[in-house]
């Protein structure tokens, strides 16, 4: 084991080859060429590289740790628990002044109410609208670029579509707020100018590059032999695509959708600017909505450090973090498996 470790990583495949036994009377030279000793200052720098490589792990642990630490008073502090309980957040509560039990988000009122359902439905609504647009568009564009575009067209098309990813989300939010909202309202006659459809459409522009890039890779990873075999059996190109290529690439495309979904749930500036920010529970996509991420962004600025509201906002962050991490790990696992498959070929 110790000799293994002293051999540099890229050469270990050589070191792990079986050793040839030497005949007993072989003369082993006792002294070879003198080996040059590296300068002393190399070692500390190598340790610096190792130390810096820990920062990514440290960052994830710290992010999680600080979200938990700041949200913890919701369970540990009696004062915070007086204002908010898990039951009030997730279930309908009969508040003074209301006729029926309700789940409402009114963090700044005489009796603060931290019902999460308006935010969860709001997030789901604009996310579903965005995925309904970005999913099909991204996958279809990936099919076109991988199968029908040739040579120069392909070379230009791919970076151009990926340019969409380079648009800052605040610019997309601005565009949705100033122009898109007006166009859509003039066309469809929405009651509220800013709503889940407007933010969903703008959001889809941010998600499309994610779906497009990952599905294109997944489609490209389908072995050429599959396509050739299908064509040799007399299938038309469209049949090959629909019945052979897409089913084979399905795990990759699914992870593209999952990662896109994660991005859509966490995206902040677009929904903050273009969703109307009204915490209403309704399933009508033409109503104004308020998402989890936008709530954190708009309320954290005015919140008192250490208050119940402060803890709840970090709790929302924790929910977002856990949700996107799970999607990310699942999606990433599928992509890694696919890469390993391509490599082994």
């Amino acid at each position, binding site marked *: 084991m110790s000799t293994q470790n002293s051999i*540099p*990583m*890229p*050469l270990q495949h*050589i070191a792990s080859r079986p050793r040839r036994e030497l005949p007993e009377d072989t003369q082993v030279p006792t002294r070879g060429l003198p080996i*040059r000793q*590296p300068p002393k200052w*190399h070692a500390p720098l*190598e340790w*610096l*590289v*190792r130390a*810096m*490589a820990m*920062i*990514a792990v440290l*960052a*994830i642990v710290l*992010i999680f740790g*600080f*979200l938990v630490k700041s949200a913890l008073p919701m369970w540990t502090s009696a004062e915070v628990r007086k204002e908010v309980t898990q039951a009030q957040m997730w279930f309908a509560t009969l508040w003074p002044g209301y006729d029926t039990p309700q789940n409402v988000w009114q963090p700044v009122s005489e009796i603060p109410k931290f019902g999460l359902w308006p935010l969860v439905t709001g997030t789901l609504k604009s996310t579903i609208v965005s995925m309904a647009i970005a999913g099909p*568009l991204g996958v*279809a*564009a990936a*099919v*076109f670029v991988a*199968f*029908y575009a040739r040579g120069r067209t392909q070379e230009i098309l791919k970076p151009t*579509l990926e340019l969409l990813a*380079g*648009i*800052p989300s*605040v*610019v997309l*939010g*601005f*565009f949705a707020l*100033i*122009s898109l909202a007006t166009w859509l309202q003039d066309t469809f006659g929405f009651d509220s100018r800013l709503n889940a459809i407007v933010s969903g459409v703008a959001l889809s522009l941010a998600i499309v590059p994610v779906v497009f890039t990952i599905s294109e890779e997944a489609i490209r990873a389908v072995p050429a032999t599959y396509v050739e075999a299908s064509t040799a059996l007399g299938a038309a*190109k*469209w*049949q090959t695509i*629909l019945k052979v290529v897409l089913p084979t690439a399905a795990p990759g495309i699914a992870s593209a959708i999952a990662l896109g979904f994660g*991005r859509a*749930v*966490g*995206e*902040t*500036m677009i929904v903050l*600017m273009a969703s109307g920010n009204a915490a209403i529970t309704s399933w009508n996509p033409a109503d104004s909505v308020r998402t989890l991420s936008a709530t*954190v*962004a708009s309320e*954290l*600025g005015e919140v008192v450090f250490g208050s119940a509201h402060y803890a709840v906002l970090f709790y929302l*962050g924790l929910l*977002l973090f856990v949700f996107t*991490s799970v999607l*990310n*790990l699942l999606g*990433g696992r599928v992509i890694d498996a696919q890469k390993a498959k391509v490599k082994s070929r």
Partner: protein
Amino acid sequence: MTLTPKSRSMRAKFGDAAMVVATLSAVLLLLLALALLLGDVAVHAHEKLSWTFLSKSPEDGMMAGGIFPAILGTAMLVLLMTAISVPIGVATAIYLHEYARADALWTRAVRMAVQNLAGVPSIVFGLFGLGFFVQFVGGGLDKALHDGKLVWGQPGLLWAALTLATLTLPTTIVATEEALRQIPAAQREAAYALATSRFEVVFRLLVPQAMPGILTGGILAVSRGAGEVAPILFTGAAYFLPELPKSLDSQFMHLGYHVYVMATQSADVDASTPILYATVAVLLGLTFTLNLAAVVVRARIRAA
């Protein structure tokens, strides 16, 4: 039902045509959206965009003058972020590709962390920046160095840059590792066979060759960092400041933050719209130029 050869080929032709139309229209729709957005910005931005707009400070409650402090603030923030995140990112990639054993538990943990970090929502970085850098580290520094007087324990340039550096770390790591992967293993083997130490192999042989890839990663990180607003909402950006930032603990103005506040909180929408469009044009110009540069560098690497 049996198909005669003729009808089969008809069906193939029709099906293929439908497939091309469906997928091509998706591409065209996306290009149209991109063109509409850029066109909308270009048409509205030119009336306000001028040299004075780029070089002057705002006047009359933002309604006159320029956005120079926001440009400068964005540049300072991004430079500081790059100086923090690129060395760490490059070191992590080198560690993952040249030092660590691919199947070791710790290596897998680092990879998982990088992957995970890339997917964390930007607003969560904002929460983290406020909770960790501003309140924990900054507040701690104040207690230790300034007897609790507020110096570091409030939003400022350094904290915003550190938050953004955490956010852009995966970009640099992925790009650098990609570049290292493209260097043929034979070069490493030849160098090791000549009794070169690992340090020399990495820093004399591999890093110089990976430089264009590292550069691409750096450029993409800068572009990403310049456009992100959510992480700096609570860690250092300010809507209006009478002076330019003087030190690492000053607050700063920022193009993206400027767009956000002005678009959502301006009292006079008609007067602020042209200023907004011009600011958006500057921000888009910045990020697009950077992205284009990354595309060109990457194309050069592939061609070489």
